[in-house]
């Protein structure tokens, strides 16, 4: 952080062309949100795996993991999604009692898309890897016949998969064809690895592939 402060004071001269450099350097704009995004998920997994070491109480471990999973679900759905990647999803009940799901995506603006690259990567990695780990736990619990843990694992999978599904639908933004989404995603990855610096400059006029 100190280095960033020094850089800020050094660049105080009216040099408007350097704004994107500054923004690029501040990779994580919401450190607290990023921390909590990963904290609840990882500690739920760690507690589940290591519960035999902490205490022999099934109930204590169950309640702790369940509470961590609930806090994780709430914070990812309501806080870290909109802070890190500008997406949000919820359920809205109409006047006549019909419920529908609403998915919102923040429009990409040049200043924002540069600085949130690292955050977006952390967000999506955390979102995808943890449900996979819980699925592994599901099979290990099933085959080792520790069935009392199955309720907890199923709760974990459903909560995390719900968030993953909701955010994928937000990101797809109404595009329903999975093939097109995958194709555009892969082409983005190719561009990124080919010329990372150029890709991140918002000055590529009109070539707004990067839609967060």
């Amino acid at each position, binding site marked *: 952080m100190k280095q960033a402060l020094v850089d800020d004071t050094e660049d105080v001269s009216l040099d408007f062309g350097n704004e994107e450099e500054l923004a690029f350097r501040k990779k994580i704009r919401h450190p607290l949100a990023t921390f909590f995004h990963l904290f609840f998920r990882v500690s739920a997994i760690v507690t589940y795996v290591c519960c035999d070491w902490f205490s*022999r*109480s*099934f*109930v204590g471990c*169950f*309640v702790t993991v*369940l*509470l961590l999973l*609930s806090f994780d679900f*709430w914070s990812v759905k*309501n*806080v870290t999604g*909109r802070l890190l990647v*500008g997406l*949000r999803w919820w*359920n809205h*009940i109409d006047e*006549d*009692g*019909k*419920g529908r*799901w*609403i*998915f*919102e*995506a*923040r*429009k990409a603006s040049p200043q924002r898309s540069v600085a949130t690259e690292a955050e977006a990567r952390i967000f999506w990695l955390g979102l995808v890897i943890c449900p996979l780990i819980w699925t592994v736990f599901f099979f290990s619990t099933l085959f080792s016949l520790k069935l*009392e843990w199955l*309720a907890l694992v199923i709760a974990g999978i459903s909560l995390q998969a719900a968030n993953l599904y909701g955010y994928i639908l937000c990101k797809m*933004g*109404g*595009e329903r064809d999975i093939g097109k989404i995958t194709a555009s995603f892969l082409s983005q990855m190719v561009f990124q690895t080919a010329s990372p610096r150029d890709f991140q400059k918002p000055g590529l006029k*009109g070539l707004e592939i990067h*839609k967060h």
Partner: protein
Amino acid sequence: FAGLSDISISQDIPVEGEITIPMTSHIREFDSSTLNESVQNTIMRDLKAVGKKFMHVLYPRKSNTLLRDWDLWGPLILCVTLALMLQRSSVDSEKDGGPQFAEVFVIVWFGAVTITLNSKLLGGNISFFQSLCVLGYCILPLTVAMLVCRLVLLAEQGPINFMVRLFVVIVMFTWSIVASTAFLADSQPPNRKALAIYPVFLFYFVISWMILTFTPQ
């Protein structure tokens, strides 16, 4: 600069590109009222919503608040509290009421899901999560009954003890039924109301039975 007025652009210059327009029925404008609010606002808003629903269960009136603005925090808290109180303190610390704990969870959530499926199959116009929300929140009176029963059980056992607990459980059971029917009955067509309410009756009956027959070892 007179010559500039003669410049014309030919009509057949191809203009191509790719525009992805989000489907307007699913994606709205960036709603700055909730998307930009601070974290503390979000927490306070959700806490207030949960508290309001608890109040609605304690004083049941016909209103739509429980239905419109559903959340599952209340049911989760109540379920965990009930399951913790229904634990038997056993001598053997290794199996410390583990199966009973998970059993309460499974009964509550599986029962609520079954009732919801039943009411949807009967043609009710209530959504899945709304129904879960109502059923979960209406467990509040029975949780209070459990608390009272545990306190009563600290006194000496006997028929009077049992009668007191029976009375409390019956009162709270009817309270739960009244509260949940106040919210759920409207969503069913009139000739199906009894068919939809009957599983709710069974659900709370099973929970009341578990509470009444609880004895700490």
